[in-house]
């Protein structure tokens, strides 16, 4: 479970996030959507412990991130919008690093690199990979274990159609086994397809929280109309 309560973060005098509260239940996939600069990445990075919020609290699987950061992060997997890698470490070494960081070994019959189509590239350096493959490497390093909470910032950007399909399946699988999943994306049709609930941010505040099922059956339009209406755009009649 991911619990965010009255989260606030300022950059100088500008409030990037104000009074943001929500809960992602186990087994739930929640989408965080908003315009550029709405505060999505700040919110997600605050949940991941990268940014220290000025106000409010974050709890991962019931553990407070501020008071017990190590225990909270142990249950969390974070995938950044632009994954960064250590320049002089190979693909395989990154996976080994992830295992060392989380103190777990992957079972011998599972090869996360093969799962994400990186088997042939295990001795290559990250800067030799395409953007999509880098994204897959980041996922392989994050999703080989079974965290109780997953936070994805634009997880589908840069992936090929097969990669998008596989990633969607992986996200569904983790939710099905009881993980709380929070993801942000500008691809509204994918958000609608994957998520059971959406939270709309605008100007650093939560301006709407809706069950996707209640929006209607048509694939793209209902969420797009809702998004445009909530973020101050003009809705076509």
């Amino acid at each position, binding site marked *: 479970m991911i619990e965010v309560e009255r989260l606030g973060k300022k950059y100088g005098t500008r409030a990037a996030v104000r009074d943001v509260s929500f809960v992602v239940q186990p087994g739930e996939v929640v989408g965080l959507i908003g315009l550029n600069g709405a505060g999505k990445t700040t919110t997600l990075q605050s949940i991941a412990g*990268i940014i220290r919020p000025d106000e409010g609290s974050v709890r991962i699987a019931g553990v407070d991130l501020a008071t017990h950061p190590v225990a909270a992060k142990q249950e969390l997997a*974070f995938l950044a919008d632009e994954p960064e890698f250590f320049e002089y470490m190979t693909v395989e070494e990154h996976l080994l690093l992830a295992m060392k960081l989380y103190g777990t070994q992957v079972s011998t019959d599972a090869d996360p690199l093969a799962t994400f189509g990186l088997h042939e590239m295990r001795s290559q350096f990250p800067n030799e990979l395409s953007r999509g493959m880098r994204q897959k490497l980041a996922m392989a390093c994050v999703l080989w274990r079974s965290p109780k909470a997953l936070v994805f910032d634009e997880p589908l950007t840069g992936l090929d159609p097969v990669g998008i399909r596989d990633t969607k399946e992986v996200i569904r699988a983790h939710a099905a086994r009881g993980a709380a999943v929070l993801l942000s994306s500008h691809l509204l049709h994918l958000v609608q397809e994957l998520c059971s609930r959406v939270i709309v941010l605008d100007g650093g505040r939560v301006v709407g929280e809706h069950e996707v099922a209640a929006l209607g059956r048509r694939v793209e339009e209902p969420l797009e109309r809702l998004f445009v209406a909530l973020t101050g755009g003009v809705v076509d009649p």
Partner: protein
Amino acid sequence: MKFAPLYVIWRSAVNRGKQQATDIRYVAVASVVAGYVLWLLARRAPVGGGAELEVVAALLLFVVTAIAWWQGTDRLAVSPAARQWLIAAPVRDRDVLLFKLAALQGSIALSALILVSVARGGTGFITVLHFVAIVVVLNTFECHRFTVAVLRSRQDAGGRGATLVVSLVRIFFVFACGALAFTAGRALLSAPPISVDAASRGLFSAVRTSPVATGFAAFLMFVRPAFSQDTREWARAMVLPLVVLGLHVAWLANARITWSSRDTTGKWRAPAPRPAISNGELGVAARWLARYPATALLWKNLRTAGRTQRLDAQIALIVGIPILLSLTSLPPLRRLTEFACGAAATWAALLVVAGPLFVRCDLRLDLPKLRVLRTWPVTNAEICAAEIGASAIVLSGVQLCLLVLGAVSLSFNPVVNVPPQTQLLFVTTLVVVLPGMNIAHVGAHVLTAVLFPAWGPLGAVSRERSSGAGYFYLGVVASFISFVAVGLAPAVVGATAGLSVLPILGSTVALLLGALLASGVACAEGVLLMRVAARALGDFDFVRD
């Protein structure tokens, strides 16, 4: 899990070593550097060392510590990869600090090796002890920078205790700087006029012994083990640095770190926010420069140069130090003018020989953004020309200011009786020669950066921290060598032409003609280096390099 961050350092070092060991360029230069260091170590008669060097080392430590307290440090700042891998992972703060400290050990060891070989030489046991002492001192200083960064981040988060500590230490440094300047001023005043040797001897002696400079004594004691003459003295002197290091480690191991946004978002070096400039508000020169892609690149780099902290700090140093020291030697005006002239000449000379190490608003900063530059409608030659031109312009501008300062100081000095015409001729000659030399010299540095992008001050990455002192020394040596190399042909051509017309046209015309020709040859060299750099830039492979 605890040592997972160290795994990153170990594997990165091994892979980086393997990669560079298979590249003939890096192997060749590394061999030359290793040979140079071995030659320094193998000298029979140790040179350097002694009281003067001890004072200089303590003074440098004093200055960098004061700067750390005054400006803050970026020691807690983490790379984007470390941010995503370590901060977001279940890793304790102390392990992240351990990771950052461990990552410095390679450069600290190399720096210690170079410093000990330059200062002393010899391969005896005492040299090993000096090496250990420098490693301990550099590690202590880096831990101190961590401490400052932790305190400053607490201060940013509203911690009153941290604010009090930072303020008290700042007050100490203000008084200590004043006391040092006063002591130095008195020492300079008591020396005979125009006797650099006597003045420097008096200065070193005063700084070491004056009761006014008592606050400085701790820094002298701190660097003493690196200058000890025997094992027993070394062991005694090592007590202080080891105790200080132990205290720092103990404090940092238990410190609760408040990672600030600037540490985890990589915005530490972001320039201060400025109002947006619309095209309509651009000056005439800027509008003209921004008309063409290549000149727009030049304009971008000039704007960057004006907005970077490093340039601000240099200008503050160039202007501040002479003013501070001049004020302490108030009564006789000639002292002030002598000092101003000397300081200007020293800075100008340093900038001539090693200027491109300090002014880097060129391709060395833009190499990581080369992908973007390649999308612009400019040729590689235009990119190189614009990039080299920016640094050369900035360097020439600063040198010109120093020349004017030196000339004005000299004209007010009654002791140095140089006729105004001679001064004017001298300044004019330098004004003609220096831009050409700067173009050639910056060109050499830029070419080196393109050829060795993975290396420190020689390449694209700047290593300005104390742990990179060895790299900086190597950079200065390399810069000096490249300056001599690019200056040889212009000097020969200029001197030959000047001497050949001297009997016919007189000294003034001969000097100016020689300067013009030397500048022309230097410019031609710069163009040649630029073309080679452009060629290398065309072959630049992001994956390989």
